């Protein structure tokens, strides 16, 4: 009996899948970018000025500046998650787009890789759009912020890969609510997006260190403040490790779902 290798079976055809998604996105690019910007900016201004007015400086900067850096990370995470969950599920399960692609000389692994890279790219655009806005508002001062670009992409990859795992096992759209409620939302609160992690009780601080978003925040926020992050290689390694491992798990689960 033929046994499929556990190794990913990847080729450059993954880029054709990426280009398919890009062509769809291009048709609605402007509303899509504005839509991705609106929600985080409302929170940023609402909380940043409203709540920030009550607060002294946080981590040595005005609260809105502190929050702006966290918002870049959280938006990147959200964009990657939404793309792989809702849009990915549509393409996989509802529209059967993946099935159509797999009748061509493209492996399922290529399809999933194309989706991963696409979601990471879209998430990067979302994070960078906010970065651009907060730079224009004068919340970013240093050229070090350019290093945030690859860090944002890496964050997008990690959360896209995690999202693909959830999509691989989802019976319907309703299932995604669990992922957001039980994973994404608590992680956002624990990872230092809205307030410094050291405000949390000790056990939660330890838990935060296990969260990929916390590493993204610890990597990206200092860069926007013009500082070199502490232990940057650790954060990069955690995000890259999450991305690689989650992608592999997503592949195995998606193969089980579609190729059995």
């Amino acid at each position, binding site marked *: 009996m033929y*046994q*499929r290798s556990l190794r990913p079976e990847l080729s450059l*055809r993954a880029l054709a899948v990426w280009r398919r998604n890009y062509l769809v996105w291009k048709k609605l690019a402007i509303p899509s970018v504005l839509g991705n910007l609106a929600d985080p900016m409302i929170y940023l201004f609402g909380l940043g000025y409203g709540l920030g007015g009550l607060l002294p400086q946080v981590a040595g900067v005005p609260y809105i500046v502190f929050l702006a850096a966290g918002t870049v990370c959280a938006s990147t995470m959200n964009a990657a998650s939404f793309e792989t969950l809702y849009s990915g599920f549509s393409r996989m399960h509802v529209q059967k787009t993946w*099935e*159509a692609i797999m009748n*061509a*000389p*493209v492996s399922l692994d290529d399809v999933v890789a194309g989706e991963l890279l696409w979601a990471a790219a879209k998430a990067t655009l979302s994070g960078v759009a906010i970065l651009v806005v907060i730079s224009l508002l004068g919340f970013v001062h240093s050229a070090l912020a350019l290093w945030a670009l690859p860090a944002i992409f890496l964050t997008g990859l990690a959360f896209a890969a995690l999202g693909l795992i959830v999509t691989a096992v989802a019976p319907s759209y309703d299932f995604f609510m669990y992922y957001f409620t039980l994973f994404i939302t608590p992680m956002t609160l624990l990872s230092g997006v809205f307030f410094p992690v050291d405000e949390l009780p000790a056990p939660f601080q330890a838990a935060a260190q296990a969260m990929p978003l916390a590493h993204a925040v610890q990597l990206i926020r200092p860069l926007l403040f013009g500082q070199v992050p502490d232990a940057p290689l650790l954060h990069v390694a955690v995000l890259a490790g999450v991305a690689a491992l989650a992608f592999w798990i997503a592949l195995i689960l998606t193969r089980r779902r*579609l190729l059995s």
Partner: protein
Amino acid sequence: MAPLTVSDLRKSYGGREVVAGVSFALQAGECFGLLGPNGAGKTTTLRCCLGLTAPAAGSIALVGRPVPQEARAARARIGVVPQFDNLDPDFSCAENLLVYGRYFGLHDKVIRARIPRLLEFAGLAGKADTSIRILSGGMKRRLTLARALVNDPDLLILDEPTTGLDPQARHLIWERLKSLLADGKTILLTTHFMDEAERLCHRLAIMDEGRIIAQGSPRELIAGQIEPQVVEVYGEDAPGWAQAEAGRFSKRCEVSGETAFCYVADAAPLLAHLAERPQLRALHRPASLEDVFLKLTGRELRD
């Protein structure tokens, strides 16, 4: 090189063997049909042939390559029309073809050069920029067929190509498939429409419960499997009549609802008998592939 050779293919789901030792081989340039009721294992057989699922046992050679080991390379020479349309709803007709061609590694220039001919073939000339959301079912099917031709394949695999289409749309698909055969393409199709199989297929295999139970040309199957004449007897009294009298005229008479199907070598004595019974209506016709199919797979529903 044979387009497709399948030997002793087996595949189980949850302990049930849905493909239980299927063997067949296609010759270049022919149309080969897999017929069978729902759940016979047709679609699973196709999925195995395309390398989309690994069989439990058996061997497959698709355009000369072992599958699933070299399925990806083999699929480069294949066009597939799936059972359910999976065109990209976000794209126009032309974009659907362009994007699909890229999955074969074709350059945009090559694909764009092919698009007008493909659209014309599909009867969609002038609809290049039309969104597929507003196409009729028949148009979508034809576009799916055109999409399957974007790589100029040697072998076309169609899973129930005309299910859900109206008669006009079905005839147009058949006509297109015939023109592809005339161009030298090889076709493998599954169907449960006997008229489709009789019209298109040079050879066919009837599948039931994961096995091929008969194989041959439509004519051979009709000649070899069944009596040449059928007399259908209708009316409220038909079942009672069939029980009491049909046996005198016909060795095999099947009742379904208010119709008795009497299979005979010579219909004249039965027709003379029926002429004296005006309460029964009769239709005399030659045996068809459908009669063979029903004889081999039974009349009970398959859901």
